[in-house]
């Protein structure tokens, strides 16, 4: 029917353009709100949300009928029309809801979602429902209608469970608390988080792990879900410390939490865990010397975890790749041994990118005598070099970059620099450029 025909029949009809993107966005929001019931939630076509309720009824304290009523009631309050169905496999549940049947045997053959020719052929053979197909041997069916049919059939008849891939991967460790009456006070929120952190501590201790990231989901009774996340600088499982981080986080929120009519459930997830073997020392053990970790965690919450860095060596040939800044780790890094009785051979600061300088040397492949940088001239009194660092040709067999000749130099006033000539004179280039790559103490 065209819109004009429909308008002719019902003059007061309102028409809206189809906006599948917004529909999808809305559906995703509903799906995330369904994490209230189970962490295994995903979207399916057409406009469906699949919940894997395996093992969740006990914690919910509901049965299937209660849950159906609860979901339908909540969605109807928001003006949504729903169809629900239960199935032992996701495909069966989806098809039962779609075709409004009560048993998989009653489903029409179209539920198989094969090509329409196949559906027509099945119907012509007198096989109109899945019940007709169920009792037949599968091998002849596969030979006649293709191998997809037995697979789809098995899934629809609840014989094979492909399991769903959840929208968000459940965290390795998560704990939750449900409230018989919605919790409407933000003040008590931190007490709840502390309780949850205590529960998570037990699991984390058993696994010998600590969390680097903690996420709290606040499920409001009207379906809104607020997410709060904190990053810690070091693996953590101490409930008091975790609560402190969330206190800091809540205090620094741009718009404060709005509990509305209250929270139904609060979940604490630990999506990122790392090894943390020993028990954490309690505050009482270190009365005179505070532990730096709470400070680092607090700074991570306030300024972002990426602002806290530690030095790590890397097994790389080029100087700029031989070290990196990484998040702090509980295992101390092993640095290569120093050359004994030598002054520092690597600079304290590295220029990124290397600074182009003009150099005068007696011979083109000789040591530098003088260089100019930022408008100043530096006369070189002492030098050591070259230390030849080749382009890592073993990693890039086809592309061969210039070789670098590094010189450790000191000027008349005592400044010590690290210069390199980019390219071997004669064999690689006729006019090698010079760069300042670092400054020594």
């Amino acid at each position, binding site marked *: 029917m065209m819109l004009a025909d429909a308008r002719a029949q019902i003059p007061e009809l309102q028409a809206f353009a189809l906006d599948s993107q917004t529909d999808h966005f809305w559906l995703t929001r509903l799906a995330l709100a369904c994490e209230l019931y189970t962490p295994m939630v995903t979207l399916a076509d057409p406009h469906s949300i699949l919940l894997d309720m395996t093992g969740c009824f006990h914690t919910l304290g509901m049965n299937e009928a209660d849950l159906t009523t609860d979901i339908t009631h909540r969605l109807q309050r928001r003006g949504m029309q729903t169809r629900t169905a239960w199935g032992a496999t996701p495909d069966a549940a989806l098809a039962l809801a779609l075709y409004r049947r009560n048993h998989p045997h009653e489903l029409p053959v179209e539920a198989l979602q094969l090509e329409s020719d196949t559906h027509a052929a099945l119907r012509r053979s007198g096989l109109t429902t899945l019940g007709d197909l169920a009792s037949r041997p599968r091998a002849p069916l596969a030979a006649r209608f293709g191998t997809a049919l037995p697979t789809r059939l098995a899934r629809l008849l609840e014989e094979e469970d492909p399991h769903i891939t959840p929208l968000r991967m459940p965290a390795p460790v998560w704990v939750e608390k449900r409230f018989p009456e919605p919790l409407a006070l933000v003040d008590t929120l931190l007490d709840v988080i502390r309780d949850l952190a205590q529960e998570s501590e037990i699991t984390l201790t058993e696994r010998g792990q600590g969390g680097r990231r903690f996420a709290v989901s606040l499920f409001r009774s009207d379906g809104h879900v607020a997410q709060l996340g904190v990053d810690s600088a070091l693996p953590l499982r101490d409930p008091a410390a975790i609560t402190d981080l969330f206190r800091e986080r809540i205090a620094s929120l741009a718009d404060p939490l709005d509990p509305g009519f209250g929270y139904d459930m609060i979940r604490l997830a630990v999506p990122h865990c790392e090894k943390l073997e020993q028990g954490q020392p309690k505050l009482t053990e270190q009365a005179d010397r505070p532990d*730096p970790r709470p400070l680092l965690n607090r700074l991570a919450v*306030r300024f972002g975890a990426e602002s806290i860095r530690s030095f790590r060596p890397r097994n790389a040939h080029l100087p700029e790749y031989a070290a990196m800044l990484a998040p702090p780790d509980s295992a*101390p890094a092993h640095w290569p041994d120093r050359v004994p009785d030598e002054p520092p051979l690597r600079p304290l600061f590295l220029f990124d990118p290397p600074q182009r300088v003009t150099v005068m040397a007696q011979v083109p492949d000789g040591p530098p005598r003088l260089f100019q940088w930022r408008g100043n001239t530096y006369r070189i009194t002492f030098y050591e070099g070259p230390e030849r660092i080749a382009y890592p040709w073993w990693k890039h067999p086809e592309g061969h970059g210039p070789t670098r000749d590094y010189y450790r130099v000191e000027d008349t*006033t005592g400044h010590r620099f690290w210069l390199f000539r980019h390219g071997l004179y004669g064999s690689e280039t006729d006019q090698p450029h010079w760069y300042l790559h670092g400054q020594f103490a």
Partner: protein
Amino acid sequence: MSDSSVLFSSSCGKSVPSTPHGRTALGVAQADEWLNGGLRRDGLHEFFAATRDDGGAAMAMALLLAHLSRQENRPLIWLRRGITLKMQPYGPGLHDLGIDPNSLILLQLPDWEALLRASTDCVRHGSAAAVILEIQGHCPLFDLTASRRLTLAAERSGTMVLVTRHQVQPVPSSAHTRWEVAAAPSMPLPANAPGLPVFDLRLLRQRGGRDGLHVQLEWDREQAVFRTPLLRSTSAFSAGRAADQRRHRAA
């Protein structure tokens, strides 16, 4: 053993023999006498780079003093404005200088306000042996009030605060000592290779003490001590001349 001591484990503390409690000796008798035994470990010390090229020397001096003051495996925290700087700290260079890179925590902050707030937090917490602030260029936020706040926090928590300033004239502050740091010519190794790092230090101000100390210190990584560069006819002469030249240039 707690995790924190695994995290920040390294050899340290052996280099501070028989100094008065709570002071870090420079290891050179003349300077330590002048400073009543060394730099206060619960104080704020400022290091001004003498010229534009001495930022590295000032930073190295602060890092080495922090390293010498380190006890009980407490970490060192280095705060800098991370994004805009072309000079990046280099782990192998720190290691070569004799500072354990594992003992250092680098905080890269977006602006001066964040840097000062974070530094106050670090100093008040008292878990770090030293907090080093790298402040490059003009920073109106780091005024007398800000430095007073840090000084009080340092005295209360027993944390050493080291502030390095590049490319800026000294401004009033409540620092216990204020130094001008420049790189000085080293004593060359055989074949005229640059030798151990040498620093030229001038004491511009000492709270409750005399200023005007001028000393050259050579850092010996193997012994983990500062010492006076050995006298040699030619290089001592050239060192003096170089220092004079620099003074002329600065004037």
